[in-house]
């Protein structure tokens, strides 16, 4: 909950930005509820990479986003997500970072970040979890000026989870089951879709 008592998504790394952004999300959420401005094409033009291993959730989340005009690419785990973003990883899915002769590095192939605006990413999925995948993505962005918005989808609602998500570089945090309007308001605030209701 934010200071206005609204469910919120936290997506900043410092408190001042957090308060400003939460206020923006909150205003947008209030506007959406009172004016039904979650329009059919609110997410028109957005390409979204969804990493979710549970088939039911993958289907529900995809439809939610497509209904609002987004184009969704759904993958089943963090490793596929990282590959879809053209971060090449070795077969063990290790991240770059510590460079020792025994550790493999991630080599960057071509980056097409402009194609994927948002990556809702489940933090609990196996094979490569969302935390590791996010670290790899952020590492691969170093020096490029790119920063793809990453939203965690998690079953937990604990502040320690939220802190961990922020620490690895995720921008926002949604708990399951997904609240349709909250997800949309989060995406719109992250992609800076200002409409007449946003008074900031």
């Amino acid at each position, binding site marked *: 909950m934010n200071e206005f008592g609204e469910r919120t998504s936290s997506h900043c790394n410092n408190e001042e930005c957090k308060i400003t952004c939460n206020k923006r999300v909150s205003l947008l959420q209030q506007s959406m509820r009172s004016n039904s401005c979650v329009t059919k094409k609110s997410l028109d033009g957005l390409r979204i990479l969804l990493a979710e291993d549970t*088939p*039911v959730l993958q289907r529900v989340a995809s439809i939610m986003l497509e*209904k609002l005009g987004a184009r969704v690419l759904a993958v089943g785990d963090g490793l596929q997500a990282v590959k879809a973003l053209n971060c090449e990883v070795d077969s063990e899915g290790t991240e770059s970072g510590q460079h020792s002769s025994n550790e493999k590095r991630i080599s960057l192939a071509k980056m097409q970040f402009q194609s994927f605006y948002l990556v809702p990413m489940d933090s*609990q999925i*196996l094979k490569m979890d969302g935390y590791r995948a996010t670290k790899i993505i952020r590492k691969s962005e170093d020096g490029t000026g790119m920063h793809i918005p990453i939203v965690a989808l998690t*079953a937990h609602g604990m502040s320690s989870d939220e802190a961990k998500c922020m620490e690895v570089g995720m921008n926002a945090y949604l708990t*399951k*089951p997904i609240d349709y309007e909250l997800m949309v308001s989060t995406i719109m605030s992250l992609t800076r879709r200002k409409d007449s209701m946003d008074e900031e």
Partner: protein
Amino acid sequence: MDVVQLQSRLSEYLKSLFNDGTLDGQFLQLQQLQDESNPDFVVEVVTLFFSDSEKLLDDLSSSLEQPNVDFRKVDAYVHQLKGSSSSIGAQRVKNACIAFRGLCEEQSIPACLRCLQLVKQEYLYAKNKLETLFKLEKQVVAAGGSIPSLDAGS
């Protein structure tokens, strides 16, 4: 029975599923996502839930029968089942999974086996109710009516 009566029966039945806790508001969110471009969305997702759940329940049974039970694996299966049940609004199944996860932490096989039975019962109950709901919807549509929507607030 005419269309109006069929619609009324359908509405009452759906309300009963909320009243007894079988479904929660998340189911209504699914219904709101169904439209002309996705006319069978709810049935499709719930059917996916059925097949997904049955596999997970089989996996859970197998895991708990192993000589050395891997509780991390058991927990992961329950976590998935909890996620998918909550995403379609199968509240009682979800709640049973929450209890199950607590028992995984305690690592008690007998308790987990009992809880698995409970989860199975809740799943079968929900499945039965949802299949009946879809049958009633088909009857309304076959009689030329449209499926009435239940307000999320009611």
